């Protein structure tokens, strides 16, 4: 299981690299389009092979939740653009920083349980890392 968790992280970096290569030859938005189309075809094939395509409770999905796909288009396009410009490591670090800090804000807004001190200390460390990333060589 450790392997699967590591692999899931690696695949995030693989897809950013592959999409980044396509963006170099086309554009970030074109790369994002192909990423979504190919993923869609694979998932349709998996659905036809047994997972099913249309679960019963689709109509119960709240309207706002359907925005995930469009947000994903922007996310993939931005990653494909950045990976060649600032490198895979820095792209990954800043995306993770944004994800973590917005996640903490969301948790606070939704009143999720958690230690305030750990959150504060973590955010300070992440912000310090971002200041270092932006500093002059």
């Amino acid at each position: 299981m450790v392997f699967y968790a590591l692999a899931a992280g690696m695949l995030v970096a693989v897809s950013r690299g592959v999409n980044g290569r396509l963006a170099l030859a086309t554009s970030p938005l074109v790369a994002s389009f192909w990423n979504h189309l190919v993923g869609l075809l694979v998932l349709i094939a998996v659905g036809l092979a047994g997972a099913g395509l249309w679960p019963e409770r689709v109509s119960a999905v709240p309207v706002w939740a359907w925005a995930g796909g469009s947000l994903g288009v922007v996310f993939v396009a931005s990653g494909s653009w950045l990976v060649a410009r600032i490198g895979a490591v820095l792209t990954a670090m800043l995306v993770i920083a944004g994800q973590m800090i917005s996640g903490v804000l969301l948790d606070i807004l939704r009143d999720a349980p958690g230690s305030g001190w750990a959150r504060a200390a973590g955010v300070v460390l992440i912000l310090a890392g971002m200041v270092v990333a932006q500093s002059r060589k």
Partner: protein
Amino acid sequence: MPQPIRPVAARRMLDLALAFGSGGILTLMILCNGTVAGVTNGHFASLAAHGTGTVAALAFLALLPRRRSGAGPGRAPLWAYLGGLAGAVTVIVGSIAMNSALALSGMLALGLAGQTAFSLAVDRFGWFGMPRRSPDLRDAATVVLILAGCLVIIFGGTGG
């Protein structure tokens, strides 16, 4: 390109800000897709995200002015079109790991480790046709500080 030349530092700051902002978009995306998955299932959530995403990408391409490419190294190799395959496999691999005995915090930490290690190799060896970069002290400090912050939040924030 008719853009005025900006100082390198300002350009870098914009790139970093974009990456940071896209992390915020990722949080909202996961909230949306996680909600769809909760009502239906993981496969359908990914299917729906990729389906609506394909339509949204076409709409963006139609609405936004075309940027001239040509700076790139010619045609893309066939494998460059298969990024979506990695995305679809991630969903499957992630759901296997999610349903394991491994706690969510451990899974998140391992995911970060996998992503960071692989990204280091991409930069170091120029995989996927990316420019080669050797990490310097500043990059190392950035990685250590940001990952340390993540670990404090992931492990310190639970059960409190």
